[in-house]
Every structure is written in structure tokens, then in C-alpha cells.
């Protein structure tokens, strides 16, 4: 966005300024925020980011329109704060550290520019407003990195939860077990079904024991999903054995008019496995 408005004398002086040799004066906020007890960075690293920041600020002030927040120079500055935020978060820091750093480095920058030019930029409302606008954008960039990080963590946790809540195990050659724990909703059923059918194909499984011991309640939709899963297993050419149906679930299935005549059921996982082994001609007994 380009703003066409009259610039004050001090803002004009700021944009005409050649920024150099102020990096050392920008180090203090970095040292205070990142080199304290949290040990997020060492002094050399803070020195590097201060030099990079000086160079990016110089490019922005020297650009065609330093007030344009979508200019390439401004985008580079935003990317710098986004990456800095990512780095701090990855090292166990907090987004507050980066926000505080951004705020304090803003004042350190104005002070450094005053010293190097001899112009009292800190006394100019227009200059302060200009820097506030720029640094608000930079704080947003730092928060953007934090939100991206949170989103990625949440997605990774959800994927892990999905995987661990439906562990498909090949307990014997050609026999898979699938203990179902918790609630079976549409999206979860689809995921479990997809994983199970792919495992049947990959392992050439001939029997699947689906254990419902961990399912405490069932409704019409869930029972429908369950039937779909059993049918899909059978269509692949494998036997589906459903075990661990609680009495209240059995009662619910009857009242929901679900036909279990075509499905093999057993009281518990042990009986289900015995049935699977029997169908495969495997006998398991005491030695």
C-alpha cells in the first residue's frame, strides 16, 4: 500500500539519511532479551542479527517509497522478524521475547539514528508515527511465525493421536488386530478404514480381529460406520471378527435394527484370535 501524503521535514530528513555504523547500538535489546538466563543466543549471534537489521532498515529508508508496507524492502524486513521469531521459538523461547525485542529495538534504532545524524527524530511525532506503523507490521510478522508454529504442533499432535488410538498390529502371519478405543465418528472411521484396508492389501491379511472393548457407547451413525468397516474388510477377501461388544452396545445394536447375522462376533479378543487361528488352520495350545 502506498500512501501519498505530505511528509514532514524530519521524515524527509529520515528518508534522506544514509544509515550505517549503528549496528552496535542495536545490540543492547538483543543482549537483554536473548542472552540472559534463557540463553537463546550468544553475543556473536546478536551482533549478526543487529548488522542484518541495520542493513534491512537502511534498504527500507533508501527504497523508492519507505512508507509502502508491501515493498520488497519491507517484505524482507518482515521475513527477518518472522525467521527470528521461528528461531527463538525453536530454541524454547516465547513469542513475548521477540515482541519485547521488537519494541525495544525500535527505540534503540531511533536513538541511534539521532546520534548518527544529529537530528532529533525522537521529538518528531511524524517520525514516531512512521516507525510505530512499521514496527507494528514487524510484530505481526513475529506473531505470524508463532501461529504457524502452533498450528504445525497441533496438526502433528492430532496425527500422532490418530495413529496411536488405532494401532493395527499383525499378531500372526495374515492376522491383524485393531483395538478401537474412544468414539468412532465419520472422519475417524474413514481414516481407520483406509489404514486397515491398505494393511490388508500390504500384509495379505486373511483375518482381522476388531476389538470394541474400548468403545463405551454407540449410536446409529457409529454402528453404520462399523458395518461399513466390516463390509469393506470382507470385500477385500478377509474375515472380520468383531470382539468385546459391551452388553449395552449389544442392546443398542438390537434396538437400532442392525443386522449382525453376517458378522462373526466373539466375547473377547482372546476368543476372536482363537477363531481367526482356527480359520487359518493354526492351533495354539499349551506345550
Amino acid at each position, binding site marked *: 500500500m502506498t500512501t501519498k501524503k505530505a511528509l514532514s521535514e524530519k521524515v524527509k530528513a529520515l528518508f534522506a539519511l544514509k544509515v550505517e555504523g549503528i549496528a552496535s547500538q542495536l545490540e543492547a535489546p538483543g543482549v537483554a532479551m536473548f542472552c540472559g538466563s534463557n540463553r537463546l543466543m550468544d553475543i556473536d549471534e546478536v551482533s549478526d542479527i543487529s548488522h542484518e537489521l541495520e542493513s534491512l532498515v537502511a534498504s527500507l529508508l533508501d527504497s523508492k517509497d519507505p512508507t509502502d508496507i508491501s515493498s520488497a524492502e519491507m517484505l524482507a524486513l518482515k521475513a527477518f522478524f518472522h525467521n527470528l521469531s521461528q528461531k527463538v521459538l525453536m530454541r524454547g523461547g516465547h513469542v513475548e521475547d521477540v515482541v519485547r525485542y521488537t519494541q525495544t529495538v525500535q527505540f534503540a534504532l531511533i536513538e541511534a539514528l539521532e546520534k548518527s545524524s544529529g537530528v532529533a527524530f525522537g521529538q518528531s511525532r511524524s517520525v514516531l508515527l512512521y516507525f510505530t506503523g512499521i514496527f507494528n507490521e514487524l510484530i505481526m510478522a513475529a506473531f505470524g511465525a508463532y501461529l504457524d508454529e502452533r498450528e504445525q504442533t497441533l496438526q502433528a499432535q492430532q496425527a500422532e493421536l490418530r495413529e496411536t488410538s488405532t494401532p493395527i498390529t499383525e499378531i500372526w502371519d495374515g492376522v491383524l488386530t485393531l483395538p478401537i478405543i474412544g468414539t468412532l465418528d465419520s472422519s475417524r472411521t474413514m481414516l481407520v478404514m483406509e489404514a486397515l484396508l491398505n494393511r490388508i492389501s500390504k500384509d*495379505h491379511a486373511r483375518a482381522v480381529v476388531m476389538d470394541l472393548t474400548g468403545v463405551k457407547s454407540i449410536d446409529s451413525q457409529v454402528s453404520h460406520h462399523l458395518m*461399513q468397516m466390516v*463390509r469393506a474388510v470382507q470385500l*477385500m*477377501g478377509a474375515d472380520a471378527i468383531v470382539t468385546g461388544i459391551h452388553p449395552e452396545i449389544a442392546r443398542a445394536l438390537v434396538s437400532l435394527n442392525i443386522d449382525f447375522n*453376517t458378522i462373526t462376533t466373539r466375547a473377547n479378543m482372546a476368543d476372536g484370535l482363537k477363531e481367526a487361528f482356527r480359520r487359518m488352520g493354526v492351533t495354539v495350545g499349551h506345550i
Partner: protein
Amino acid sequence: MSIFGLHLTQIGSGDFLLDPSRSLNVRDMDRLIEEVTAHLMQVRAVRLYYDLSDLGLIDPLYYSWLDALARAAHIVNVEMICIRMQPTAAFALARFIEGPPAFKTALEIQDWQN
């Protein structure tokens, strides 16, 4: 023996493998069923293995073809077994069929024979 879109091969005593090709037009199922059942009767077939390995998806139209062929085969005393159904096809099929299909299923021919 070949019928347009289908290839029928004897793989054992009374056992036949039906291999559909991409050119199979299941909309012409009445004619196809007549020709397949006529051949099965002629060769005294006992089992018909239908290979689904090249089919990534089974839609209601294709399912009605499989269902009709299995029922027709049953009438001439031939058991139809669909083999090598792909996970994606089983996934899709399980979502729209209401009851057990008219055909049997197996991962491989030897799985059924065992």
C-alpha cells in the same frame, strides 16, 4: 476365450479366471451375461474368479454388473469369487452397498482354494 472387454481363461479343473479389460462396457450387461454363462455351461465350470486388480473404484453401475453376473453364474451352478479387490474399491463399495454381495471375495485365488 474372449468376449469383447472380457478375457476368460481356464486355470484348473472347473476353475476359470475372468479378466476384464478397459474396453468392457458394463451398460451392455445383458448380452455379456448371456455370453459368459453360455460359455461357463459349455465348459462345465464350477468356479469363476473375477479379477478386480485393475479397478481402483467400483461405482454403483459396475457393482450392479458384478451382482448380476454373480447371480446368473449361481443359477448355472457356478460360484463367483471376486479376487484382488483394491483398498480404494472396497472403501468406495462398502459405503453404498446395503447388504452382503452376491459374490464371494478373496485376496488371491489360492486364498480361496485353501
